[in-house]
């Protein structure tokens, strides 16, 4: 498949004050297409993301998480607690098209880096702020919300074993989702700027962006005062629709049946023709009503079979099914390999495996340009080459702890 690296955003510069995950995703979507995306960070207010997960041996806390999620980006070390650090940040913004940040609302203002300020030095700047609840409102500075977002948005009531057994997703799943959403909003704002020359400010309240998925369950409350809740792996319209235990440790296979034709194909594929004539399962409505019996029958069939073999067999009969994969199986899976989902990239402390870009574009395929940078890797380049600060002065800045 022909793929051309067009550096679509070769002329775009992004200054990224973001930390942890959501802002990083927003940034490297541009970096993977050639934009210069610079993460501003400091040892004095360390991004804890670097300390998440295992670090490369010999490195001082170069965690595989940031090596992954900060891929293609640059890093400048700048102490924003020093006025000179803020001045340099402003010089960077003056040469930037986009500013990304996800501090607690109010922090950028305190630093003198609010949109109103940055607009004075770069009138067409596009700035995006991501926060839990948005820049205004009674909860704007509410504490401790990272992974709790799935609670306040009601998301956790919709996943779990049943109404009384909700379950949280074990990591901040909403960060990558809202990160892609933020990049979408930025791309729209860039189009507007290309046509009119006008920049703008984008306020993303992650809670509200998340609730944007829940239109139908909300309408069920509006229409019928019904509070929807978790139904495990079941579905409101399809049955059978579940994960079924297979042979092996924690091994499962998914099966999803939408139509009568698919149901008959499942019966044929599994060699259970009697199911097809069982009155309890004669149509979609009856299958939904009797899905517990159905789940038991199917489990009896899957229990001593291999998940991969089951999926292959059912798919050959046109039935939706796939193995439930664990991390090791995802990493070794041939389909993901076909799609070049992972790659090894050289890193100063040994090679690391990073994930690639999930959207496959036939003309301008975004690509990983390198691993997440070491803290401050590009400080000298940036100060000297781009801001034109002579070396003698950068030494002085370092001595004054501006570059900590």
């Amino acid at each position: 498949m022909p793929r051309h690296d067009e550096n679509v955003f070769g002329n775009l510069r992004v200054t990224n004050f973001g930390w942890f995950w959501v802002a990083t995703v927003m940034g490297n979507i541009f970096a993977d297409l050639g934009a210069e995306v610079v993460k501003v960070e400091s040892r004095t207010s360390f991004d804890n993301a670097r300390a998440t997960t295992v670090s490369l041996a010999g490195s001082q806390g170069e965690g595989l998480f940031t090596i992954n999620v900060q891929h293609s980006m640059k890093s400048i070390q700048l102490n924003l607690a020093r006025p000179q650090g803020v001045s340099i940040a402003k010089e960077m913004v003056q040469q930037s098209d986009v500013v990304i940040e996800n501090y607690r609302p109010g922090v950028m203002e305190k630093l003198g880096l609010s949109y109103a300020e940055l607009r004075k030095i770069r009138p067409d700047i596009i700035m995006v702020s991501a926060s839990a609840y948005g820049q205004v409102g009674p909860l704007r500075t509410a504490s401790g919300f990272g992974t709790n977002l799935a609670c306040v948005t009601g998301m956790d009531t919709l996943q779990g074993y049943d109404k009384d057994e909700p379950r949280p997703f074990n990591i901040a799943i909403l960060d990558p989702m809202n990160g892609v959403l933020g990049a979408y909003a930025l791309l729209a704002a860039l189009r507007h700027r290309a046509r009119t020359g006008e920049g703008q400010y984008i306020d993303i309240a992650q809670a509200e962006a998340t609730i944007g998925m829940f239109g139908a369950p909300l309408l069920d409350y509006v229409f019928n005062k019904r509070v929807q809740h978790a139904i495990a792996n079941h579905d409101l319209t399809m049955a059978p629709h579940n994960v079924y235990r297979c042979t092996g440790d924690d091994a499962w296979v998914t099966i999803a049946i939408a139509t009568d034709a698919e149901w008959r194909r499942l019966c044929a594929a599994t060699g259970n023709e009697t199911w097809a004539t069982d009155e309890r399962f004669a149509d979609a409505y009856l299958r939904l009503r009797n899905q517990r019996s159905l789940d038991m029958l199917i489990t009896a069939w899957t229990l001593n079979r291999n998940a991969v073999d089951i999926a292959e067999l059912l798919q050959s009969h046109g039935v939706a099914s796939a193995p439930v994969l664990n991390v090791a199986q995802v990493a070794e899976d041939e389909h993901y390999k076909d799609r070049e989902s992972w790659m090894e990239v050289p890193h100063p402390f040994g090679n690391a495996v990073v994930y690639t870009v999930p959207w496959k574009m036939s003309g301008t395929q975004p690509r990983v340009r390198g691993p997440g940078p070491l803290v401050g890797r590009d400080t000298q380049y940036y100060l000297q080459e781009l801001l034109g600060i002579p070396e003698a002065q950068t030494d002085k800045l370092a001595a004054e702890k501006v570059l900590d």
Partner: protein
Amino acid sequence: MAPKALEGVRVLEYGSFIAAPFASRLMADLGATVIKVEPPVGDRSRAFGPFPHDVPESEASGLFLHVNANKLGVTLDITSPSGARMLKALLATTDIFVENCEPGYLEGLGLSPSKLRASNPRLIVTSLRPFGMQGRHSHYRGDDMVAWHASGAGQGYLGDPDREPLRGAWHFTDHFAGICAAMASMLALHAREATGQGQHIDIAEADLMALLCTGPTRIGVYHYVGTYLSRQGKLHAGGAPAALLPCKDGFVYIHAYEGHQWEGVVKAMGDPDWAKEPMFSGSFMERGQYRDELYALMNDWLMSRTKKEIFEIFQRHRAPCAPLNTMGDLLFDSNFQSRDFFRSVKHPVAGALTLPGAPYQLSATPWALARPAPMLGQDNEQVYCGLLGFSHAEMSDLHRAGVIS
């Protein structure tokens, strides 16, 4: 009227259920002209509900009304030669075509993305499939749950260790795919400015959780150390407190990682004597060894208070806590009300609809909920007569022949 960021962008959607319709909804919200093409019987989400007063009505399905707001709607039987020709005619004036047909379906009709692009090189085609269009399992059928579990998300992060892994909330994968499809379509639109060429975008639903969530958090680690973690039930990590805990009227999520946050938790609960025990005086991770004891001791205090009371007391002591809001709670939440988040739009059949508002507030080109989702074939005349130049007599013949409805 405020300008729109995607003014002049023409999108055609042949989408079903959530993934592709959600992608084009995001574009319509920012001002793109989106024409939704439905088969004559309508999108299957019209049968999904929820319905007002639980009375089934294809024009009043909550799922359809949510993911298709702000669009124009036409009907077309693309399996008929006339319908296929009309689809191609519509694509001649389209910038972005978004579709999530079953694997092989468009190819069978001679309408594969590459064929469509061959006659219109500026066209951007964005395709969503459970396993994508490249790779050995690209023919695999699947839905939201099938793709989710193939990404490692369920086994790794959702459910109890000794029970089955769970699917994500409310068709999470479908929505995530829609967001990625809209975003990648914008990438292609910007690329077209530079190259003059459209392109094909292949979105695999299984890839998204695998490459954007499972991957960065665990794949690198697995390759490096050869081991991996699996789902941990109600707990967030090894430390404590970090769990979804029951209270008087539901659940609260308590996650006190820093020492001062733990002190806030203790103060919020009125400084109980048990909290002074040495077993709880260590770090977050050390306390994790006694989490069962800890949660048992917190239980009485939690069970005698509502989630709202607990949230407010914890906030006063800057102790991290979140109430587990239900869908009903959200509509009455004072924070969302004060931000005027939920929006209303009037629909001719379903009546007044309350829908989630802006996912992002753009200062110069605001998000807008301008019109409700289209009735079946609502804009046939405007699109086929106005855009393609059909006469009313021809429309009548097309209707009689079942090409439109």
